[in-house]
């Protein structure tokens, strides 16, 4: 098994294009090493991208943030300005694994590993994050919700790399939140995850909303029907009831060792509602 640590994106892409067999991007390694140890994958090449500056930095851009895909969860959680602008995305990132796992895990890895239960992904989708992708044909941007296509599968070509995410400028009176359900307080994979991002207008009515669910389908997904239940409302109990029902209705979960279909469907509504309540509180507090 070869290991390479390129210093530029171009070099990384060239390495991925140049190999016939399986190659893998090595970011935090917190999913990759487990899969290798279990014998589920046997790559012939690992491309360590942690030495590439634009992938490991957080910079302001157009009033928003461009976050390198290989920024670790802990670095993101410790970034005060980002956490203030996007507490929901930060909630999601903070829930990944343990402090130790967060010391290595990255948002790029969390997205591209494409577990349907990944904790940062629903919040990123709700936030409207846009992924910047580089491949042999050049650079392109894609909304995060277009990337996961199934368990362990993405829409990326085998030699494309997500290099950064753009979290857009925040409209005033906006708030986001991510909640998940797990049987223990920490260390579990989400049985259900919900990310809600909303903006309030001058009259206190919701003018924009995005809702995404994780762990209730073959990939994390935006649920426009659920978001529609909030738009134009004051996010009162009735609206939240409709949100919960829409969230439950959108689920197409499986029975597995972490949860049954019925449980996921019921709890998706509960968690989506609670996340919306927190997002609302946060929006109300913003100037």
């Amino acid at each position, binding site marked *: 098994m070869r290991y390479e640590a390129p210093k530029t994106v171009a070099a990384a892409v060239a390495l991925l294009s140049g190999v016939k067999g399986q190659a893998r991007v090595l970011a935090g390694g917190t999913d990759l090493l487990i899969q290798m140890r279990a014998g589920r994958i046997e790559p012939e090449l690992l491309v360590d991208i942690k030495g590439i500056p634009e992938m490991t930095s957080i910079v302001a851009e157009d009033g928003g943030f461009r976050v390198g895909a290989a920024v670790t969860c802990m670095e993101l959680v410790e970034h005060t300005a980002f956490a203030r602008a996007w507490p929901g995305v930060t909630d999601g990132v903070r829930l990944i694994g343990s402090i130790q796992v967060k010391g290595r895990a990255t948002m790029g890895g969390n997205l591209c590993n494409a577990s349907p239960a990944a904790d940062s992904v629903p919040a990123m989708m709700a936030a409207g994050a846009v992924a910047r992708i580089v491949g042999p044909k050049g650079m392109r941007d894609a909304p995060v919700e277009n990337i996961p296509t199934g368990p362990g599968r993405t829409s990326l070509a085998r030699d494309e790399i997500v290099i950064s995410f753009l979290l857009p400028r925040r409209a005033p009176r906006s708030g986001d939140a991510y909640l998940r*359900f797990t*049987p*223990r*307080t*920490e*260390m*579990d*994979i989400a049985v259900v995850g919900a990310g809600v991002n909303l903006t309030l207008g001058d009259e206190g009515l919701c003018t924009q909303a995005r809702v995404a669910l994780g762990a209730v389908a073959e990939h994390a997904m935006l649920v426009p029907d659920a978001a529609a239940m909030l738009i134009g409302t004051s996010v009162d109990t009735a609206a939240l009831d409709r949100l919960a029902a829409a969230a439950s209705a959108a689920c197409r979960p499986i029975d597995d*060792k*972490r*949860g*049954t279909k*019925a*449980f996921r469907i*019921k*709890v998706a509504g*509960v*968690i989506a509602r609670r996340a919306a309540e927190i997002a609302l509180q946060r929006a109300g507090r913003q100037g």
Partner: protein
Amino acid sequence: MTVSTMIKYEQKELKVVGTRPLRPDGVDKVTGRARYAADYNMPGQLIGKVLRSPHAHARIKSIDTSAAEALPGVKAVVTREDFPDMAVEYAAAGELTINFRDVTRNMMAREKVLYDGHPAAAVAATSESIARKALKLIKIDYEVLPHVIDVVEAMRPDAPLLHEEQYTEGVTPKPDRPSNVAKRMVFARGDVEAGFKQADVIVEREFNTKPVHQGYIEPQACLASYTEDGQAELWTSTQGHFVFRAQCAKVLQMDVSKIRVTPTEIGGGFGGKNNIYNEPLAIALSRKSHRPVKMVMTREEVFRATGPTSGANVKIKMGCTRDGRIAAAQAELNFQAGAFPGSSVPMASMCTFTRYDLANVRVVGNDVTVNRPKVAAYRAPGAPIAVFGVESVVDEMAKKLGIDPIEFRLRNAAREGTQTYYGPKFGPIGFIETLEQARAHPHYSAPLGPNQGRGIATGFWFNIGNETSAALNVNEDGTVTLMLGTVDVAGGSRAAMAMMVAEELGIDVDKVRPIIGDTSSLGFNFITAGSRGTFASGMATVVAARQAIEKMRQRVAKIREVPVEEVVWKNGQAQPVEDGTRQFAPMSLAEIAKVAGKTGGSIAGHAEINAQGAGPGFGTHIVDVEVDKQTGLVKIVRYTIVQDVGKAIHPAYVEGQLQGGAAQGIGWALNEEYVYGADGLLQNPGFLDYRVPVASDLPFIDTVIVEVPNPNHPYGVRGCGEVPIIAPMAAIANAIESAIGIRLFEQPMSPPRVLKAIEAEEARRGA
């Protein structure tokens, strides 16, 4: 020859026992110096790996290891061909009994593989990656058979059969068809039918529990070196190195004296390290390869192939009169034994109702083989399962009658003189004291918030004694080296032993150095299990110390030329007896030791005993929970343990046992379970989906130590390690009922089950 020993409890002023010195193994453990089995290495060692069955049940038609043997770097391969068959022969191993015919089959399959993970071959190679490659080259032809993993299904006459020669023992006339029920047992007293007729309230319930694993953080590991003279050395993570030596010698047909087992520092056992797994394979691989062989289990192997505790189906029926007196109690315990017979159902049967003074009792226990790993002991084996049922039913009866749950138990509590239904009559015990102190504890009357509830439950364990030896040597400078044969399975027993020696000799505990000897250093020591470590080893230690004191009295009498009756040992020295006729200059331990060589040889004491008189332990637990009715999540808000330990030699270590045991019980109650697919394969062999409590899942756990001395131990010690795991499941079920009015009968009481019960109740009310 072992000597039965009971040394009576003496009420006396204590200087060391009951204080909290630092543990002797502590500095090594906080600096990373402590050596656990996987930390040992020998020059030239090979890495051993096991090929495990991918099927829950299959006949082995053929095994072809030729390609593996030909792989460069592979130095030995073993299969069933390398181990002799064993006849049926029973031996005690911790609190369960083993059968050598099954031991050899569990460590290496012979005719069949009986569970996902069952060893079928093993290799030793120069590196781990070569060993793994070699496993892939071994070809085993399996004939897959239907499997059964549920205990109730396994008991049906048409269930797939694990052992064609297994006929249910304990049933007359002897059955004419084989069965997965290996053994049936009955414990009875009085007349339950008559008792139920007298009852004003009868509650009958059925409970189902899943298997759970002891969850020790250190996977099994061993290092074996077999040399051409037929001697073997083995370093291994074990709770009982003498028992491991005996079992290895047996299955490998070696003399016991030719195996020297050193117990390494152990990273948790809880009963799960009472059994050999890789050890005989490592020795056999070393014998074949002429090199040391190291075998370390992965976490996945620990879950797939080492013994969990039983899952079970439990039926409880109890009746009481209007004044809250239990009139009759009946139980049927159906326990999974795993692939081979020998679950903890006998012990569970004996603990089911034992907290109560009952005239009419009947407990039927069934030991049932299923296609899962062979079960091992787990901290008070079997009792938590049976007690989950009983303490839930007791709670229901109390509620039906409007009697406070502690008051109800007090009206029925066992006390000194109570005749148990499984045999003995109780001597002095502290059950009532624990109930009363629980009731008086501020926790019991603290206010509860919304969606919160409080539950109580009680536990009992016999605790054991058994064969134990110890040796004590007074060094030339008056310090003492204490050689113990019981493994210190984390409880701090070696510290407690050193404290008892210091107390007996009247010296600073700092001057006593305890070590655990290997099997060549001492006589037989039984496994550290059954809460016996501090009790039995303490007994042996005190016998050894008193023997040394006796020798020193003799020695000083000789040196000072006085009759030995004039010499007494007090305050760390030999001095004239009070009201004696002869005066002489006292001699301290150091002074005696300094001249010991010239006056007859160094001073030592030793003891080889079969410790009798272990004192039963009782505990009462109080738990507050908060239930999220929309998701079924149960949070532990507050937890208090009140337990009678006889005497807390080192109170901090006793507290640690109580808190640790309760934490395991909480995990068992809420989230831990083995998840199998319909294919009989284990789906959660890792700490991600086998959910033990993490630090943020638990609150501080308050402990109240009750001391009703065990009259059969010089310091009144009762074992304490097992009782605390027994009550949590029932206490939590009772607390949930108190919080939301719904009782759960299945463990774990995980969120999906709780939510389902809530929804079912809502539907029932709505209907």
